[in-house]
C-alpha cells in the first residue's frame, strides 16, 4: 500500500481499499472485474498500476499474487539441497559458454571483474585464483571507480559483471561497458534482468530463497566462477597441472 494517499484520486483510492480488504481474492480478478468490484473504470485500474510503478495491471496483478505467497521466512525455510542447486547451475549453462569465457580470459589483456557486496567476495576469489594461474584481472566493487575503469578501458577489454538480482549499480556498469562496445559477460540469477540485454555471454546462477534479499545466497555465482577458473586452468595450463580426485 502507498505511503501517502494524496497522490491518488478518489477512484484510485477506492481500488486500493478494495485490494486491501480483499487482498487474497483481488489478485484473481481481471482489470475489468476489479474495476467493477471497486466501482470505477478499467482505465483507473491501469492508471493506478502505473502510478505504483508497474508497467500495467498485468505486472501489478503478478506482484499481488506474489504477496499472497510472502517471502520465505527463515523459520519455515525448506532444507536446502545444495547438490541439486549445483546440478541446476550446470544445466542452466552450456559448457561451450564457460569454455568461451575461459578462452577469452586467456586471449585478452584487460579483464575487469565487477560486483558489489557479497558478490564482490565471490569475484575476489576468482580474481586471486586466476592471478595464481597467470591470468591477471582487475577486481572492483560496483562503484564510481569501476565506472572510471570501464570508461578508460581499452576497446578489447572484457567486463564481467555479476549480480544476483541483475539490478542497481552492477547493471548500470554493464550498460556502460556495452555502450562503449566492450565485451560484456554477465552472471545473474534473474532471468528478467536487463543485464541479459547488455551481455555478449550470459551465464545463469541459482539463488536459494532467504527472508532478506540482502543476504541472498551467492553460492550459484560462486559455482559459475569456479567452473570458469577450473576450465581456464585445465585448458590453458594443461601441461603443468597436477590433479588428484577428492575422496571421503
Amino acid at each position, binding site marked *: 500500500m502507498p505511503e501517502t494517499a494524496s497522490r491518488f484520486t478518489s477512484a484510485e483510492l477506492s481500488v486500493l481499499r478494495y485490494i486491501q480488504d480483499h487482498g487474497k481474492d483481488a489478485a484473481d480478478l481481471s482489470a475489468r472485474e476489479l474495476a467493477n468490484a471497486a466501482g470505477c473504470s478499467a482505465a483507473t485500474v491501469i492508471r493506478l498500476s502505473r502510478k505504483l510503478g508497474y508497467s500495467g495491471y498485468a505486472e501489478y496483478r503478478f506482484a499481488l499474487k506474489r504477496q499472497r505467497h510472502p517471502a520465505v*521466512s*527463515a*523459520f519455515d*525455510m525448506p532444507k*536446502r539441497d*545444495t*547438490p541439486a542447486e*549445483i*546440478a541446476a*547451475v*550446470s544445466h542452466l*549453462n552450456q*559448457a*561451450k*559458454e*564457460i*569454455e568461451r569465457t575461459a*578462452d577469452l580470459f*586467456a586471449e585478452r589483456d584487460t579483464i575487469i571483474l565487477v560486483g558489489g*557486496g*557479497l558478490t564482490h*567476495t565471490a569475484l*575476489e*576469489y576468482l580474481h*586471486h*585464483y586466476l592471478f*595464481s*594461474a*597467470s591470468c591477471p584481472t582487475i577486481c572492483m566493487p560496483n562503484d564510481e571507480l569501476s565506472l572510471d575503469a570501464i570508461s578508460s578501458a581499452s576497446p578489447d577489454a572484457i567486463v564481467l559483471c555479476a549480480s544476483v538480482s541483475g539490478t542497481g549499480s552492477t547493471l548500470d556498469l554493464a550498460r556502460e561497458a556495452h555502450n562503449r562496445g566492450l565485451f560484456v559477460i554477465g552472471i545473474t540469477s534473474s532471468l528478467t534482468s536487463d543485464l541479459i540485454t547488455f551481455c555478449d555471454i550470459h551465464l545463469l546462477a541459482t539463488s*536459494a530463497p*532467504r527472508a*532478506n534479499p*540482502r*543476504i541472498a*545466497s*551467492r*553460492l550459484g555465482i*560462486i*559455482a559459475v566462477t*569456479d*567452473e570458469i*577458473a*577450473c*576450465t581456464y*586452468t*585445465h*585448458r*590453458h*595450463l*594443461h*601441461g*603443468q*597441472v*597436477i*590433479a*588428484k*580426485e*577428492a*575422496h*571421503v
Partner: protein
Amino acid sequence: MIEAFRDDILSTLTQGELDFLYFTELHLNDIASWSIEEAAAASYTSAAVIERACRKLRLSGYAELRFLVRNELRERSVSVQEDVSDYSARTAQDALLRETKLTFQESLLSLLPKAVAAIWQAHSLVLFGRGLSEFPAEYLSDYLTRIGKSCRRYLDPPFVYRDVAGFTDKDAIVIFSSGGRTIPVVKAAAIAKKNKATTIVVCSDQESPLWKMASIALYAASDQLSISQIDLNSRFTEFAVADALVDELLREKVNTASSKDS
C-alpha cells in the same frame, strides 16, 4: 621464497641475517648465479653471516640456498600455453557436483546445528583463512555481520595468535583451510584448543593435523590441483559449507527470538 621457511625457524635469525634473507627474496635472479662473496658484497653483509643464516634455516650452506633459489625461479615460471587443450567445461561442472555430493553427506549435515550453536553462543568469535581460503572466511564473516553476529576475521598471524591467546571455553574460532597443514592455521587451532575454546574447522584433508585438533570438523571435499607447487584446489565446497552455516544460523536466530518471545 621466504614463505618456504617456518615462522619459528625464521624467528631465530638475527636482524642482519633476516636482512640478507629479505635481500635474497628481492634479488632471486642474481643470487641464482652469484657466489657467496658476491652475495655478501651486494647485500652489505659478510660471508660468515650468510653461512650462519643458512645453517639456522637448516640448510647445509649457501650452495643449498642457491639451489633452492634456482628451484623457486623454475617453479615461478607458470605461463599460459599457446595451445589450448580440449578440456571441456562439462568436466569442471561434473567435478564441482561430485565434490558437492561428497561434502553434503549426513556426517556434515548432522554437525551443522552443533557448529552453529557454538558460533551463535560464542562470546568472542574469530574467523581465520589464508590464501584462497581467505574468501570463504570473508564470505561467512560478511553474512555474520549482516545477521547481527559480530566476529573478527584475520588473514595472517600474528594478530590471530594474539586474539585467540585471550580465548576461554566460551569463545570460538572458525578456520577455513584446504590442506589443514599450513603452520599459522595449525598454530591458531592449537592456541584455541589449549584455551579450551571451540575450534570449528572447514577442511578438505581428514588426515591433517588441523582436522585432528578440531572440536567440530566439517569436511569440504575438494580435488587437489596444483601448478608448479602453487595450490589451486577449488574452495567452492568451503564456500558451500559457509553458506550452509548461514542457513542454520538464520534458523537459530529465529529460534532464539521465538523462545525469548515465549
